[in-house]
């Protein structure tokens, strides 16, 4: 991903009274990538998004969205940015179509164009058959999908999704994640805030982890994975009946193994690739009973936890 940087914050800071919510934040988000803004509750994710949209004024520092400053030119930013708030709400007495039509009108989209667009979007998010049903009858998942359609109605260049999967069942989460994964193909940059790491790592190209308003780490997911595990990408746990020093040497000789550590009944192997088959072979050949092997791929959780302890 080497697109140009389209959303950027420079030393962005926000204070509520004396509490610093966002603290000299620097983020760089490239065109047509999916950027995950991660962090625990209260890390300043929502506030950052609000500042990027010009809905809240920063105390100091600045932000840029496609060359516009959201504080000084909020309308220009709002024209090209779609937003799905954390607790998205609709006019419950209006139908899905009417809700979207209202937003389309506010964006100055012509009636015919809006109608076409609404059909297309509702179909895309999979609620086309309930387009003329009052939103009050919608389930949480349907509302969330309608929210995504709503954020896309103005054909935005950048979409801010604040906790798009919060409160959904696993199937709903998958559907939303799939929808989000397709957005860059439609030409949109996506900024996604979440604390559900597993889902984020399925779709995000880059992430920024926030803690107490500060960026703890920022970069592409691949790069972070490599950084998190200094020395290799795979970690294999081998459980045997009787660990002995000889076994360590034997495993160490398998090509690709970098480091072996003994820890109780476990052998912790750091390797360049998935060497389970090879390791199993040498252990069995050495007549040691092998109980089980487990591969530990470095997930975002590990990255997250690692930086969290440091942060």
């Amino acid at each position: 991903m080497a697109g140009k940087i389209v959303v950027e914050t420079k030393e962005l800071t926000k204070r509520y009274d004396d509490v610093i919510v966002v603290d000299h934040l620097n983020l760089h988000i490239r065109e047509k990538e999916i950027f995950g803004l991660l962090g625990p509750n209260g890390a300043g994710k929502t506030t950052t998004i609000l500042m990027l949209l010009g809905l809240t004024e920063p105390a100091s520092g600045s932000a840029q969205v496609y060359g516009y400053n959201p504080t000084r030119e909020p309308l220009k930013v709002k024209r090209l940015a779609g937003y799905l708030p954390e607790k998205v709400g609709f006019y419950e007495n209006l139908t899905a179509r009417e809700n979207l039509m209202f937003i389309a009108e506010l964006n100055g989209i012509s009636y015919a164009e809006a109608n076409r667009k609404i059909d297309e979007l509702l179909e895309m998010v999979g609620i086309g058959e309930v387009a003329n049903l009052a939103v009050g009858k919608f389930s949480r998942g349907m509302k969330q999908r309608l929210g995504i359609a709503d954020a896309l109605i103005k054909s935005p260049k950048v979409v801010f999704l604040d906790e798009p999967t919060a409160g959904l069942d696993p199937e709903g989460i998958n559907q939303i994640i799939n929808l989000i994964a397709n957005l860059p193909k439609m030409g949109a940059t996506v900024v996604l805030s979440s604390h559900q790491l597993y889902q984020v790592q399925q779709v995000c190209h880059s992430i920024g982890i926030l803690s107490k308003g500060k960026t703890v780490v920022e970069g592409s997911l691949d790069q972070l994975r490599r950084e998190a595990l200094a020395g290799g990408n795979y970690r294999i746990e081998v459980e045997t009946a009787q660990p002995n020093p000889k076994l360590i040497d034997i495993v160490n000789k398998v090509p690709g193994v970098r480091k072996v550590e003994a820890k109780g009944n476990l052998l912790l192997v750091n390797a360049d690739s998935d060497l389970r088959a090879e390791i199993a072979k040498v252990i069995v050949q050495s007549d040691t009973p092998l109980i089980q092997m487990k591969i530990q791929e470095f997930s975002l959780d590990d990255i997250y936890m690692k930086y969290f302890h440091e942060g």
Partner: protein
Amino acid sequence: MATIFRKELADYFTSIRIFILFLLVFGASAAGLFASFQGIRGTGTETGFVFLKLFTTSGEVIPSLTTFIALFVPLIGIALGFDAINSERASGTLSRILSQPIYRDNVINAKFLAGIATLSIMILATILIVSGYGLRMIGVAPNAEEIIRLFLYLVLTIIYGAFWMGLAILFSVLFRKIATSLLSSIALWLFFGFFWVSLIVPAIARTTEVYLMLQRLSPHTLFGEATGVLLHPISRGAGLLTAGEEISYMLFNPLSLGQSILLVWPHITGLIGITAICFATSYVLFMKQEIRAT
């Protein structure tokens, strides 16, 4: 702004709340008509302004139409405004609307205007229904002055309703909970409409001047006096001499239209003033408010 205005207006007209209010208003018009039907024969037509009597005459038990209107207009205003902003905030639509390329003040302006439009339609409908039916009932056509007075009364009532709506909108900006804003508006209405006027002021006022001055702090009194002067040209003292006894001693010498307007000018200015204060405060608060949902 036209888009939001249209949506708000559509919302008002499709809501059950407004349907009930319309029923109430028409019920009140019917009651007022019935009251004047009972009472108008006894009022003596020599004073002129027979048509206005339709609005101000009370029956044996039923109060006059203007009394009904004075009672209902604040309620209508409050009903139109009390959840204007905080319901949108609670349902999460506010942040969605404000992230669209519109100016933030458009939202509150459009809501206020849509409320005033609804209010005007309701009051105009009431007055027209009573006029139309009353015309058929008494067979006396209104003269030009009566029409002008009625029109002024319409404007006055709309301003009065707008004040209560502005106050309710202010509370809806101030308070996050819909119940809080509704109860605060109703509490203020009760306070000014009843406690202030009939309990507190009579208890603390020593002289008539102080009494009148304190009374006029209440928008309820302002509206009541202005109504009296506009629709009851014979009462010259605006509030002071409206008690039935004194009126019967007064010579028949109604105030001219110009003098009536002059007399109620401060009232109208005052009502417009407090309406503007309410609206301006809510406007400023809303513009500065954080819009985040939590």
